[in-house]
């Protein structure tokens, strides 16, 4: 990262003046934490005692056999407390908030996963907590709202714009500029104004550190390729950082939605619909129209359904260090289905995108080669979306019967 928070052409901190001091404080605290080896120790100790780190790197014997090519390993971020890699970032920022002496945290959430993680962290650290969530997402993801509220957080449905993730981010910024003295905004992915992209990636690098050690222990050498889904880019950055300096091909998989030509997707780094832009505080590739107005995006996976992408990934794309692919909603459901049946593992819809691409490429690799799929989260949180996507008739009956009871 350059002094101004750029990675190649991308990044920066396009923030309202009122936040200037807040960002200086954050940068300073983050800088001190990075210099201080005891901080990372405290962080990993917390993650091992409260979450379940190191998470396993599971050898997927059945999938490997099924595809008959590379040996498939799955990095199990689903086994984190709250069920996804989001916990890593959130707990790290929680420690920083404690250091800064702030008493309140806010966050945006799309799928609800980052909101859940933040509400959890706030309960654990004793912070007040407000979560901004697009009204559409509140309606789609009611279970997560329920848990956030039970954890003591206030969930604010955002009724502006497309009423999804990007609007929740805008609204969280509006809160922040109002309450900056006691409040920290826990950004949920490797986007946003500097130092967030780098800082979030740093906390997530725990994934790659572990995975690099684990693959050597288990497979005896580095993997040929590493796959991760890319929403904002935090889980991808997390795992990729374990292999950036090595001869390992890194593959980011974006949401192909109904297909790259359909206009209904969320692919920023592959496909032709995105262009350079500046929004939500950073410069990167955005799905926007000619005038610079952001477009509506689509993905079966709420966590990938976002207009922007990490500036660090935009840079790695420029440098051809990471290859970007996309997976359609349909392919995602098929890969999820196969993984459940063959391995007894339920990847989140987001994570399933990485599985799709890995499955496409595994057969063409030799059996001595290993590949790692970063399973960013578990899918059982997505019962409402997944059962819906599978169009399961008994699920529908179940919901209708429940509703009957509640109507009485």
């Amino acid at each position: 990262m350059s002094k101004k928070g750029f990675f190649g052409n991308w990044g920066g901190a396009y923030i309202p003046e009122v936040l200037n001091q807040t960002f200086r404080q954050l940068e300073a605290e983050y800088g001190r934490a990075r210099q201080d080896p005891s901080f990372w120790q405290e962080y990993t100790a917390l993650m091992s005692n409260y979450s379940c780190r190191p998470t396993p790197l599971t050898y997927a014997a059945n999938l490997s056999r099924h595809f008959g090519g590379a040996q498939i390993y799955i990095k199990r971020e689903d086994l984190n407390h709250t069920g996804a890699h989001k916990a890593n970032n959130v707990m790290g920022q929680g420690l920083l908030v404690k250091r800064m002496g702030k008493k309140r945290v806010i966050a945006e959430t799309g799928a609800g996963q980052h909101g859940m993680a933040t509400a959890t962290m706030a309960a654990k650290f004793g912070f007040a907590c407000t979560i901004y969530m697009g009204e559409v997402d509140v309606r789609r993801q009611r279970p997560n709202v329920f848990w956030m509220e039970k954890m003591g957080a206030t969930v604010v449905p955002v009724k502006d714009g497309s009423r999804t993730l990007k609007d929740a981010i805008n609204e969280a910024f509006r809160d922040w500029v109002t309450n900056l003295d006691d409040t920290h905004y826990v950004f949920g992915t490797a986007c946003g104004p500097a130092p967030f992209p780098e800082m979030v990636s740093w906390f997530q690098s725990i994934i790659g550190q572990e995975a690099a050690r684990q693959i050597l222990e288990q497979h005896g050498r580095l993997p040929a390729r590493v796959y991760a889904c890319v929403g904002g880019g935090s889980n991808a950055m997390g795992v990729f950082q374990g292999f950036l300096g090595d001869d390992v091909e890194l593959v980011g998989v974006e949401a192909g939605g109904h297909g790259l030509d359909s206009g209904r997707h969320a692919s920023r780094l592959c496909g032709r619909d995105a262009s350079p832009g500046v929004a939500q505080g950073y410069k990167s590739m955005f799905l926007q129209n000619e005038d610079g107005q952001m477009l509506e995006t689509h993905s079966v996976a709420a966590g990938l359904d976002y207009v922007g992408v990490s500036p660090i990934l935009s840079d790695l794309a420029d440098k051809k260090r990471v290859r970007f692919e996309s997976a359609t909603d349909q392919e995602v459901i098929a890969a999820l289905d196969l993984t459940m049946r063959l391995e007894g593992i339920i990847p989140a819809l987001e994570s399933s995108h990485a599985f799709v691409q890995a499955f496409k490429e595994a057969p063409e690799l030799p059996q001595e080669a290993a590949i790692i799929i970063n399973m960013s989260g578990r899918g059982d949180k997505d019962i409402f979306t997944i059962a819906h996507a599978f169009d399961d008739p008994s699920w529908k009956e179940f919901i209708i019967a429940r509703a009957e009871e509640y109507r009485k």
Partner: protein
Amino acid sequence: MQLEETLKKRRQEKDILLMTHLVLGYPSFEVNRTIIRQMVDNGVDCIEMQIPFSEPMADGPVILKANQDSIAAGTTVAACLEFGREMAASYDIPFLFMTYYNIIFKYGEERFLDAAKAAGITGLIIPDLPPEMGGEFMTMARDRGIAAILIFAPTSTDERMGELNHWAAGFVYCAARRGVTGKKSEFGSEFYDYLARCRRATSLPLAVGFGIQNREDVAALIGRADLAVIGSRTIRLVDEEGPEAVGPFIASLR
């Protein structure tokens, strides 16, 4: 004449100047025209025209909604530039564009500046472009005689105000408080201390915005600032009472 000069000249004739704000294309360019005529007729000294953006992160609910409705109604950047040209040609007060950086970035910085210049626009307010990000752009603007207006916030230290002043042109926009547009600000001694700090930090005219609602608010600024900025208050007025209410409201402020 450049913006700073124009304002200083006008200021010699009045205790305090009035700057007003509107969102282009909201509710329509037609209504924008009516409103601007009334503003000018009632003595407004400077008008800030917001080119709508889908992600107006520094704006409160009223302006946010106006942005979204305008875009939904089909407002384009080209149409905003053309409308700006028409206004600047029609009235003898400075017109500014206010927008978010992406609108300019996407249009092309130089291309945008040239178009603004050609339209007779004298200043730009870009709330998400601090000088660290926009230094080069600000220089290009200055080269074309367009003022890139910077913002002071209550959280800005004296040192920071100094840094900002280095880049500032036209006037300095002093945000009256933390937060987004559209909420009432409290004017107490802390606020006056802040304005005094602002005054010490720059020789440019000072505009004060965020939540100015009525004659008392404006009066309180006399002697402490040069421009009072009326933001979302007029939008709400138009929404509630129609464009004709704008003239009398402006007239009542001073």
